């Protein structure tokens, strides 16, 4: 990477991080909302641990994986809305007049998602452990969990960038939120895959990548070290990130030609 590109990414990353940190309206819901649902689900579905074959006797430990994915979904909204605002206010047009490279723009914009991802993961894990959840993989597993969580958050952030560049409107990006929530809802979010007794739901959850992201996080919390689940989780996060980045790069080219 040339020093010029590093400098460009650094400048935009700094702006993206500051912008995220200066908007409590972005940070607070991304942390509070998943924690609220964690509390409600952990209390309301506690009896699910009585089902034969349930992998742990602590539903809190089982459901603790969900806030990490919900938090990542907020990253789609935050990164997308920020970029959409840059498009709506003409900031992207001004950037287009500079020799800034597309890769620098996209990477820099993901810095805000990265920082928010770190904050979210630390808060979710800390709150979960304080509330009594287990972390079977120990302290090193906690570190891997943070890295996995941030990888997922950044990967989802690329989809937000693509949506912003494709539609150019913050409202359109916000409108995608329910669409992404469908992926979470139609996964093994509340019960393990083999306890999903409705055939069609089991079939959908089996091909839904979110199921395997959840399983990777759960493996660290419940089992300890399951390298197969972890590799699958990191692989899916990398694939989503790569596809999102390619789509965003393509949309950026079109957007800059259009403007």
């Amino acid at each position: 990477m040339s020093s010029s590109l590093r400098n460009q990414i650094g400048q935009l990353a700094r702006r993206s991080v500051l912008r995220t940190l200066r908007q409590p309206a972005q940070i607070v819901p991304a942390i509070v909302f998943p924690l609220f649902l964690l509390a409600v689900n952990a209390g309301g579905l506690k009896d699910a641990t009585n089902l034969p074959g349930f992998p742990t006797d602590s539903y809190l430990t089982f459901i603790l994986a969900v806030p990490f994915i919900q938090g990542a979904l907020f990253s789609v909204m935050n990164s997308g809305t920020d970029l959409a605002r840059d498009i709506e206010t003409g900031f992207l047009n001004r950037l287009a007049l500079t020799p800034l490279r597309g890769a620098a723009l996209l990477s820099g914009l993901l810095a805000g998602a990265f920082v928010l991802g770190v904050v979210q993961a630390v808060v979710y894990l800390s709150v979960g452990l304080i509330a009594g959840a287990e972390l079977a993989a120990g302290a090193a597993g906690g570190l891997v969990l943070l890295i996995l969580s941030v990888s997922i958050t950044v990967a989802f952030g690329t989809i937000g960038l693509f949506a912003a560049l494709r539609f150019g409107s913050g409202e359109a990006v916000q409108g995608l939120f329910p669409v992404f929530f469908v992926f979470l809802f139609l996964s093994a979010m509340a019960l393990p895959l083999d306890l999903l007794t409705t055939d069609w739901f089991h079939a959908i959850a089996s091909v839904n990548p979110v199921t395997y992201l959840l399983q990777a996080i759960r493996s660290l919390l419940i089992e300890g070290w399951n390298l197969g689940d972890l590799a699958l989780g990191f692989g899916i996060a990398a694939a989503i990130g790569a596809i999102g980045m390619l789509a965003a790069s393509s949309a950026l080219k079109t957007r800059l030609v259009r403007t």
Partner: protein
Amino acid sequence: MSGATSTVGATHPPGVSTVARAVAWRSIHNFLTNPAFLVPSLLFPLFFFVSFAGGLAAIGDVPGFDFPSGYTAFQFVFVLLQSAAFGGVFTGFAMARDFESGFGRRYMLAAGHRSGIVVGYSLAALFRALVTWTVLTTVALIAGMEVGGSGGEIVALYALAVLVNVAATLWAAGVALRVRSIQGGPLMQFPTFLILFLAPVYVPLDLLSGWIHAIASINPVTALLEAGRGFISGDPVLVGAAFAIGVALSFLFALWARGGLRSAEAAG
């Protein structure tokens, strides 16, 4: 709309029903013709229903869970009441957007009886909920939902949902008229979400324990849910309490919305 327009142009200011019809007509028209409003209203409850009834079906096998009509019907009642509440909240969003764009001020200038504005939005919210319930009920029946209740009990279930819709609309209207900006959206949405999910959503109250049992026991939505589930299974419980709560909430939030209207009038 033509009727309303001609009355606006007349010597006497339009009455409550004329204003209400005009406001409701416009709001319903916007709802039906804009996919950005229509689609989420229909899809959100369906996703909740599919996710809860499909993904959590095994919860019906938990020891102590003995709801006679099965887990699909158990969750249907929650999703029905939730869609009733969110039909009201989404209408509050529309109201806030109208006031933010200045259209609400034009309503205030044109309407002699301004309470008709709130009534109009409430009628639109009810229409919105009826559309959602039609789709939701159809999907639930296709999915094989068992209905143990009689015709009268099912009517009572939907009557309860109407009360929830009215109460939620008046709550959201009170916020929208005070904030007069779409930025007030989370204020309308979050408390509604909170009170709904702090009720026995996934299992009956008896199977809850700890802090969530304590909160659910005093949450008024619990009585609404239990009565609704009683109606669909043909074993009515807490009927009087549920309707009393529905009427009381509607009355309280009507006062709240009236205060909002005064606030909007004072703001000019």
